[in-house]
């Protein structure tokens, strides 16, 4: 597993090069943005159940056959598995966001996920839709642009508007999940 620091080290070592000022500039930004990063991660961890439940509900609403007998979210045991997986994906996205590097998400969550779903008969197109909704919801909560109840307050960084860059980074991790399932 890598983070922003060790990613720099691994790519420098591949060239046998010393890490100088140029490469350190990016890392200094990572360090300087620590508060925003922690806030953005909190936006996920404080709203996990809500994000996952909304996404799965949205997925079912768009495709009501899922919860009917014969559907993939029937009976409730399978629906529960779906909610659980939504939370697991959010957990790995939160790790990747904190580390500033997607390796933990790729190695421990996405590697073999599609094969597992295919073997279990989980329809990946529906899973992709749920992840898309989670991505939209997460970005909205992080940047405080969600409508209705305010779900997250930037404790360290001041406000969600400060978390714009980090939110796009989080979106890129969700995109990795979507790519892996397609």
């Amino acid at each position, binding site marked *: *597993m890598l*983070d922003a620091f060790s990613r720099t080290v691994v790519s420098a070592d591949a060239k046998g090069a*010393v890490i*100088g000022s140029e490469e350190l500039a990016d890392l200094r930004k990572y360090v300087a943005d620590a508060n925003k990063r*922690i806030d953005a991660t909190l936006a996920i961890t404080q709203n996990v159940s809500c994000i996952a439940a909304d996404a799965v509900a949205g997925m079912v609403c768009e495709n009501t056959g899922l919860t009917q007998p014969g559907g993939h979210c029937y009976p409730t045991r399978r629906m529960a598995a779906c909610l659980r997986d939504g939370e697991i994906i959010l957990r790995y996205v939160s790790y990747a966001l904190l580390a500033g590097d997607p390796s933990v998400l790729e190695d421990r969550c996405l590697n073999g996920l599609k094969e597992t779903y295919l073997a279990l008969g989980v329809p990946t197109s529906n899973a992709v839709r749920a992840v898309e909704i989670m991505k939209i919801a997460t970005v909205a909560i992080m940047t405080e642009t969600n409508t209705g109840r305010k779900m997250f307050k930037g404790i360290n960084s001041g406000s969600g508007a400060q978390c714009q860059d980090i939110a796009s980074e989080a979106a890129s991790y969700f995109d990795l999940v979507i790519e892996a399932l397609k």
Partner: protein
Amino acid sequence: MKSAVTTVVSAADAAGRFPSMSDFESVKGSFDRAKARLEAAEKLASCLDKFTNLAVDAVYQTGSYEQANKDKCVRDIHHYLRLINYCLVTGGTGPLDDWGISGMREIIRIQLLPTAAYIEAFIFIRDEIKINDVMGQQAETEFKGLLDYLINALA
């Protein structure tokens, strides 16, 4: 590779839980210390060749030797200092452990290399070179801590 953040994430993942408040505290603590070590890494990168040459010259100043041996010594000291540069960036001893120390004893034993010269060179860098001239106090402490770590591993 081990660093402050990956250690926290590994522990959280092993327990299957989300990063907690204390995890954030520990990550934040490591970021607070990051400034000094990034400075040390940057300054070491710019002085790496100079430090290497000063140390090797000091080790080889007496006695007769073959130039080829000295060149190899330069190469190795440079290699270890590069790994220290990496350790300063990651904030842990991972790069030294993984790429410089593990397996080192076996290589030294098989090739009958004397480690004394390396130890002497790193002690020279630690004690004789005025590191203070190129980097701040805290950065120097970070750098010397890793030199000590390496010296102990070689001894």
